[in-house]
């Protein structure tokens, strides 16, 4: 008995093989759906179709595909089940919008228009409304693309390649979060080498959704990102960018996790040690760079989300902003993408408000480690306490502020304890504090005995 050992295949070769398969299968709906799904999704689809024929192995992807095709169900049934799985998993590209309109009517209308062309080259192929959290529409756009293919070998040439025009199926998942009034357009993108205009594809999808009675409005991502960059918070860091200035453009690419692009420029412009100790103050340089960056337009920008360890590449096009999510070790999910972009949604809702901007500017302009005590801070604005608290909460979410705490007690007693300073370390206050006579003065485990303030934090040194 010999054991057959398969040769090792490099990940690069696997990627190339996958890309070739994707290109070859673009003009067949079932095959292109197979190419869009993972093996486990295909296995689940096979189980929904009644399981594999007796004795048939489903170890690898191709065996599962074969079993699905031989399941004895009609092509329509197979397509429906595969599409159901296609809308369930997030793809790489996202386009974020808000919507106005009646969703119930839109779903009803969508079911009537199933399989029909709603806009140029855009067909509504699937509707899923049994998920409590969201409603999904699957829009398929078919157009022509030019791909390079390998031609039969010719004498004297090891490899011969030629251009081939092929049908391109590009599916877009439209995920409607009814409770929050948000819409995500999610699409996989096409392999490198296929000419495809995402802005046109997005406009087509928006037009198609409009036919169903829902008007989509792109999220003002550029304004939100500008606001995030100028705030210099710790939650989201710009790590890559193509800056366009009147004099030319500048491509910046800092090592994700090591520095933000402002810090990268700061390294380049900081004075050397030979300049008689005239090293400029780093916070000052960063402030200037951040301010000047805000004056120019970004063509693309890479954002590192510190909490989630996810990198997103945002490319601004005619339709709005296309987010490419590079998930890394994080599991892709619609919920996570929604949680991340929630910051932008809440910012977008406030950016037009002068009251918000006034309070926001006061927070942004606060010096490093400056503390906002709520009584004083609220007194500086005409807005209600609730509005001010909401802006503060927003700033905490974005990593501009952190909560700091102090015992609610007489100054004399706090001095006696040596606890006059605000501390971010809340657990150290969770105990009973007694005076020199041994009687209880304050119980730090009760929330009413803890005062809350907020401290400004800014990115310094490394990005994390």
């Amino acid at each position, binding site marked *: 008995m010999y054991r057959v050992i398969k040769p090792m295949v490099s990940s690069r070769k696997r990627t190339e093989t996958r890309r070739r398969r994707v290109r070859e299968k673009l003009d067949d709906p079932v095959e292109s759906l197979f190419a869009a799904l993972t093996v486990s999704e295909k296995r689940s689809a096979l189980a929904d179709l009644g399981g594999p024929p007796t004795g048939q192995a489903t170890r690898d992807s191709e065996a599962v595909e074969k079993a699905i095709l031989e399941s004895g169900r009609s092509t329509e049934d197979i397509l429906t089940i595969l599409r159901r799985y296609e809308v369930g998993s997030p793809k790489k590209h996202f386009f974020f919008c808000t919507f106005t309109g009646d969703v119930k009517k839109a779903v009803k209308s969508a079911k009537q228009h199933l399989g029909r062309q709603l806009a140029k080259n855009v067909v509504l192929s699937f509707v899923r409304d049994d998920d409590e959290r969201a409603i999904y529409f699957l829009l398929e756009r078919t157009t022509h693309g030019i791909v390079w293919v390998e031609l039969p070998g010719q004498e004297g040439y090891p490899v011969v390649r030629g251009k081939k025009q092929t049908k391109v199926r590009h599916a877009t998942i439209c995920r409607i979060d009814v409770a929050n009034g948000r819409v995500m357009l999610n699409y996989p993108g096409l392999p490198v080498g296929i000419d495809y205009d995402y802005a046109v594809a997005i406009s087509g999808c928006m037009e198609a959704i409009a036919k169903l009675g829902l008007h989509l409005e792109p999220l003002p991502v550029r304004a939100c990102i500008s606001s995030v960059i100028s705030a210099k918070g710790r939650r989201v860091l710009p790590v890559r960018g193509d800056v366009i200035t009147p004099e030319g453009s500048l491509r910046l690419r800092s090592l994700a996790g090591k520095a933000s692009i402002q810090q990268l420029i700061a390294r380049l412009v900081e004075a050397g040690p030979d300049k008689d100790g005239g090293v400029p103050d780093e916070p000052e340089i960063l402030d200037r760079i951040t301010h000047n960056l805000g004056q120019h337009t970004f063509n693309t920008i890479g954002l590192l989300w510190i*909490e989630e360890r996810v990198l997103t590449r945002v490319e601004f096009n005619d339709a709005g902003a296309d987010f490419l999510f590079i998930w890394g070790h994080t599991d892709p999910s619609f919920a996570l993408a929604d*949680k991340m972009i929630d910051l932008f949604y809440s910012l977008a809702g406030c950016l037009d408000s002068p009251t918000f901007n006034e309070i926001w500017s006061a927070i942004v302009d606060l010096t490093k480690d400056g503390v906002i005590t709520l*009584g004083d801070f609220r007194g500086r604005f005409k807005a209600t306490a609730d509005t001010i608290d909401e802006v503060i909460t927003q700033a905490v979410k974005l990593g501009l502020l952190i909560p700091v705490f102090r015992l609610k007690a007489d100054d004399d007693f706090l001095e006696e304890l040596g606890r006059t300073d605000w501390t971010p370390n809340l*657990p150290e206050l969770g105990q009973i504090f007694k005076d020199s006579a041994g009687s209880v003065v304050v119980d730090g*485990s009760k*929330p*009413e005995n803890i*005062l809350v303030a907020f401290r400004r934090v800014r990115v310094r040194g490394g990005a994390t």
Partner: protein
Amino acid sequence: MSNDTLTHWLPELMKITAAEINDKLYEWLSPIDRKRFTCLYARLEKVVAWKSPNKGKKAKTDQGRRSRLIGRLYERLLVVLFTARGGLSVETNLRNTTSEIDLLLKVEPSGLALPLLRDVGPHVVGEAKCHANPPSSQLVNEMVAFLQTVSAKLGLLFVFCSSRVLKSEVRTAIAIHSARGTIIVPVGRKQLEAVRDGAPIMRVLSTQRVDAENHLTKLAI
């Protein structure tokens, strides 16, 4: 009411997902005497690893003493998790008309701010099983029956076998009971070691409850 105190800000701060802020709040809501916990944990590990140098009848006697000591140490260790002034207060070894409750954990008002305790009613029951064997589906079923006799919705099943991923039938049993409204959260060395290394107990329990209710394949003790 003054709205610059934690009473006003706690619900708002709990909504913020930054781990750094969350952990501080968890730690304040359920403080632990870490020094004591680490000391007891090290002692317990030593006793568990100890083997009698004797043979025959003497070895059996030693084994019995060791088992009793392990049981006592384990219960003391678990009490340390909840004794400080936190979201749960604890009473141990309580007799009722039919059996004994190892740990009766009462939900305090501050505990209601924690996602783990929001929907579990006034008390949680903890069972300490310091066996070498991993929990079985039978153990889960028995614990559910016990919880129903004391009208508890959430049971913490503390075990101290070597760390491992739970078997499929155990996860299935947990899932079935969870769907019927009785939640069993297995807690083992993995979770206790996380607490020893500085993680807040309520975050650890909360994560474990989510894994148990979703009967995830990674559910481990």
